């Protein structure tokens, strides 16, 4: 992609145009792919020789875990865009991604817990992978809370970008926690040296569910970004309207004559 095309696509007005045309198609494709993935999960995938039917929980747990990490990675890149280039869409992208990433991380933790009870005999252990995913959810919550606390958008964008980059340290910890520490959680079985350890009859439906979730998540993200741009437009118009009213309406308390503006009374 040439830099000029990238610049053009990431211009907020252009973004509104191309994303508006793309979102309905992406949404339809996501629904179709989720339907296919669910059909394969429940009617084609055989029960696992150890986990039995419970393996079907993995078809939502793994895509949710991937998206929880994926959206945080995307937010970290956007944070760099905010701090280094002050790109107007970078902060919009980051703000729109946070609730989606948090929701997928929550799904990952709850479905993992529901899988853990019949398989491990417990809903929760303070294992490195589980704990680092819980920390990811807490970071997401912290970021969302910080946005709601700071009223001024530019100040909020910078503060959130710094917090996001600090929290990005957790991403490699999540990925390699199963290698660095002795964990109850199984080691990597899809993305690993020497190829996947999952049988193709189970792997391909899982990859379809991951693709469906990624497409669905991306669609939601684009949709939320469009809404965020509208929210900022509403804010600008509200401030402009308030300033106009302030100029046109007569002052209730007249300025004391002869005193310079900005001088403490």
């Amino acid at each position, binding site marked *: 992609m040439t830099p000029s095309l990238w610049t053009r696509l990431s211009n907020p007005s252009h973004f509104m145009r191309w994303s508006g045309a793309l979102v309905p198609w992406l949404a339809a494709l996501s629904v179709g792919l989720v339907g296919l993935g669910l059909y394969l999960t429940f*009617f084609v995938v055989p029960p696992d020789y150890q986990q*039995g*039917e419970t393996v079907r929980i993995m078809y939502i747990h793994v895509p949710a875990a991937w998206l929880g990490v994926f959206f945080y990675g995307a937010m970290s890149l956007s944070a760099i865009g905010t701090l280094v280039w002050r790109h107007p869409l970078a902060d919009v992208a980051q703000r729109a991604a946070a609730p989606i990433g948090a929701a997928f991380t929550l799904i990952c933790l709850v479905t993992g817990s529901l899988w853990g009870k019949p398989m491990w005999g417990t809903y929760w252990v303070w294992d490195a992978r589980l704990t680092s995913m819980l920390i990811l959810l807490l970071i997401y919550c912290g970021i969302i809370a910080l946005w709601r606390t700071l009223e001024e958008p530019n100040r909020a964008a910078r503060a959130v970008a710094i917090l996001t980059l600090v929290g990005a340290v957790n991403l490699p910890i999540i990925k390699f926690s199963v290698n660095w520490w002795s964990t109850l959680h199984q080691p990597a079985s899809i993305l690993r040296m020497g190829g996947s350890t999952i049988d193709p009859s189970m792997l391909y439906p899982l990859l379809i569910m991951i693709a469906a979730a990624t497409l669905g998540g991306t669609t939601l993200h684009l949709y939320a970004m469009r809404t965020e741009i509208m929210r900022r437009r*509403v804010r600008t118009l509200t401030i402009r309207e308030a300033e106009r009213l302030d100029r046109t309406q007569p002052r209730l308390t007249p300025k004391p004559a002869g005193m310079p503006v900005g001088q403490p009374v």
Partner: protein
Amino acid sequence: MDLGSHGGFIVAAYAFTALVMAGLIGNAVRDRRAQLRALKGFGEDRR
């Protein structure tokens, strides 16, 4: 379809996911409508 003795856990996992996704999509749509209403109030109608 027989989900075996752990069927309750499987159903609960999918039901929870459906609930969270419905909340996420519902909230996104509600937020979009609110912004569109506000823009309309300013005489702008952008979609």
